[in-house]
């Protein structure tokens, strides 16, 4: 029941996002192959100065273990630094409202959340984070975590191309991602948001005249620059507790559209980058096809489920504009849903709707996106997940026809499959174990309402953390020691286990010589392969997660208990 203007709105937004993502993907492939780009004269001297300060040689290639070591250690150091900033923010400058330091467990959870690109917030930014913490702590991590995700994907992809066992230089990848991609993109995004009316000031509050005289004190800050990297870096932590539903962070339907496009940029760029980097541009399309099939089906279901909630049909109310409970009136329901769809499926985690009040169908579609993690998934890691799924699918397909499984001239052997299975199984383990403990401790202490609803909320919490998504379903009583510590650990493991696995697979592939294609080689740039991949991903994810979906959102759907 899509009106034509709605259709134009959705298609225009998605089309613009895809177009820009394609262009970015091609630019990124040049960037990481060290090929010349038009921006070199500007950035070469800057990068050289940075390498000199770091004391590193950006040309020295690294094996996967060294690459992983650099990645984990820089991330760990940044985590410790931000933990200290949050813990001691009461004594630090730029603290206009005299916000006290966070408790150790909340500081651990928050620092882990922003280091892992999750940005799950167990605190209200307006009243529990100082400007110092927001900028020098959290915003810094938003850049680092986004760059780390891209660097890992690039190293993984190099495994398909190189034959010397090397996956690239960590410092070169991370510096180039930051200076030539993230900072310029964030700056352009911030400018656009600025002109679209998003505030940007160092003042931490403003006075807004009230209708009857007097003033309303409103929280402000450098919102446009934060918003920009929040969306482009697939971080998703809000400058305000209400995140992208807050009128100061997302004032109009136009800014909503811009933010959707921003979220699409680096989540949809990797397939194009991949095709160029493995020197078979057509390899981009089976993956893009798979992502689009999974994502568009999800979107259509979301539109359908949010059109109305039959549960309230006994009341004399009309839902002609959709089920707007927990949604903002300055966006159409399809705009809110499109934002929420890309935000969750792209593992951004920004929210423009109250997720706890979505219909059960919509809640399960969002959970499904985080179970998949790859349609399109978070920056870098999302496409890495899709590649891991593809390797498994090719392995299974190869065994079915009795051929040695290979992809792009590289054999897929026990080494790769071991790491792929570890990645695949870590996700349900990281969700279900802490969930079981929380449920055993009493669901009524976690969330109010019917049991299936409270279960859905707790399930969403750990799913969002393990997928490094960061959107939250509420209201949930999650600023507790258990949820902070368990959640922090889930985010760290949910981030670094797949990352190390991707690097290990890339490293193992990179040591292999290339086998020339033969008649037995699976033709991967084909519609058949796309359908095979989609089927594989859906069946595996379904087998892993249908039971919890049945206990949570589906049980709500049949109104139990």
């Amino acid at each position, binding site marked *: 029941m899509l009106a034509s203007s709605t259709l134009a709105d959705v298609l225009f937004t998605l089309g613009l996002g895809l177009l820009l993502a394609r262009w970015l993907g091609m630019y990124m492939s040049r960037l990481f192959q060290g090929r010349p780009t038009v921006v070199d004269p500007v950035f070469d001297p800057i990068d050289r100065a940075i390498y000199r300060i770091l004391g590193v040689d950006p040309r020295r290639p690294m094996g996967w273990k060294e690459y992983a070591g650099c990645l984990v250690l820089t991330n760990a150091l940044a985590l410790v630094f931000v933990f200290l900033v949050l813990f001691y923010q009461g004594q630090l400058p730029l603290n206009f409202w005299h916000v006290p330091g966070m408790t150790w467990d909340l500081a651990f959870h928050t620092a882990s959340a922003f280091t892992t690109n999750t940005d799950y917030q167990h605190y209200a930014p307006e009243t529990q984070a100082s400007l110092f913490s927001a900028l020098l702590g959290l915003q810094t991590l938003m850049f680092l975590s986004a760059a780390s995700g891209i660097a890992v994907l690039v190293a993984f992809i190099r495994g398909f191309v190189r034959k*010397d066992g090397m996956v690239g230089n960590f410092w070169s990848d991370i510096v180039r991602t930051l200076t030539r991609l993230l900072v310029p993109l964030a700056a352009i995004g911030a400018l656009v948001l600025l002109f679209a009316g998003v505030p*940007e000031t160092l003042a931490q509050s403003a006075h807004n005249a009230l209708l009857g005289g007097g003033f309303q004190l409103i929280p402000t800050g450098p919102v446009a620059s934060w918003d920009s990297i929040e969306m482009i870096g697939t971080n998703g932590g809000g400058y305000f507790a209400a995140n992208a539903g807050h009128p100061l962070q997302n004032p109009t339907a136009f800014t909503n559209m811009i933010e959707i496009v921003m979220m699409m940029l680096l989540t949809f760029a990797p397939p194009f980058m991949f095709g160029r980097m493995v020197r078979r541009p057509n390899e981009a399309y089976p993956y893009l096809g798979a992502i689009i099939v999974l994502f568009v089906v999800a979107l259509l279901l979301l539109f359908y489920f949010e059109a109305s909630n039959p549960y309230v049909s006994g009341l004399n109310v009309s839902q002609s504009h959709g089920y707007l409970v927990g949604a903002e009136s300055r966006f159409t329901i399809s705009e809110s849903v499109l934002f929420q769809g890309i935000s969750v499926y792209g593992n951004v985690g920004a929210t423009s709707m109250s997720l706890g009040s979505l219909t059960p169908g919509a809640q399960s579609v969002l959970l499904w996106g985080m179970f998949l993690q790859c349609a399109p998934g978070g920056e870098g890691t999302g496409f890495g997940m899709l590649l891991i799924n593809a390797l498994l699918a090719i392995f299974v397909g190869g065994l079915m026809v009795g051929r040695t499984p290979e992809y792009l001239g590289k054999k897929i052997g026990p080494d790769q499959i071991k790491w792929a299975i570890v990645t695949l199984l870590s996700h349900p383990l990281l969700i279900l174990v802490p969930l079981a403990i929380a449920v055993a401790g009493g669901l009524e202490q976690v969330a109010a309402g019917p049991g299936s609803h409270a279960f859905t909320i707790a399930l969403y919490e750990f799913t969002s953390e393990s997928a490094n998504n960061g959107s939250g379903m509420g209201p949930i009583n999650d600023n507790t020691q258990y949820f902070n510590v368990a959640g922090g650990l889930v985010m760290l493991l949910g981030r670094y286990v797949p990352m190390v696995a991707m690097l290990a697979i890339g490293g193992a592939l990179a040591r292999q010589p290339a086998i020339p294609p033969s008649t037995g080689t699976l033709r991967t740039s084909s519609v058949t392969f796309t359908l095979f991949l989609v089927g594989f991903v859906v069946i595996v994810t379904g087998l892993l997660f249908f039971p919890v979906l049945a206990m949570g959102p589906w049980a709500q759907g049949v109104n139990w208990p």
Partner: protein
Amino acid sequence: MSGRTVGHRRPPREPRELSPDLRGGVEPVGTGLAPDPPFRWPSARSLVASVVLLTLLTGLAYPFVFTEAAHYLTPATASGGNITLGQNITDPALFWLRPSGIDYQPYSGNASEVPYGPVDPALLNETKAYIAEYGLTNVTVPLELVSQSQSGLDPDITPEAALVQIPRVAHFSNLSQSVLLGLVNDSIVHPTGGFIGPQYVDVIALDQALLVLEHRTLAASYEPVPVR
């Protein structure tokens, strides 16, 4: 000599010397693996310098440059004071907003979460209570008017949600229903470019126009909101 080859698809210098087997494919399966590369720890200096540099560039320079730029580029909107937020309007002679989970307090310290699920008996009870509170028991009510937004600060409602309030506003004010109908119709904001965004009414602007029309000022019942 001919300069850069933009758009050329072949990479300039793949280290071919490292892959002698690339073309012939003569290596039998299972051999020809490159040696396991050596492992080196990154130096403490690189690690510390990278975090310090990152903090200075993205945590300090990036936002500070932008706040300064905004000061010159968009002085009117940079402070955020031009964006209307919801506020608590209880005067029956004015149009009302959607209910707020945080009582329209931007500094409530809480996220405004809708406190009930989609099939929760509380959803029905709360909605019924809101319908009674808004005095709309005898008409079909647009659901959004009697339910919370996500932010709890949304100043906007759908045109239908404004129209359904006209009888009450007319009853308590000196204005006729037809005048109010005209007022509501004039205050409808239309989609940007014809397709971005819904039709909606900014209640604060609508009430402002209504007060002007009545030559009335509201009793200053609103105190500056205390923080914490």
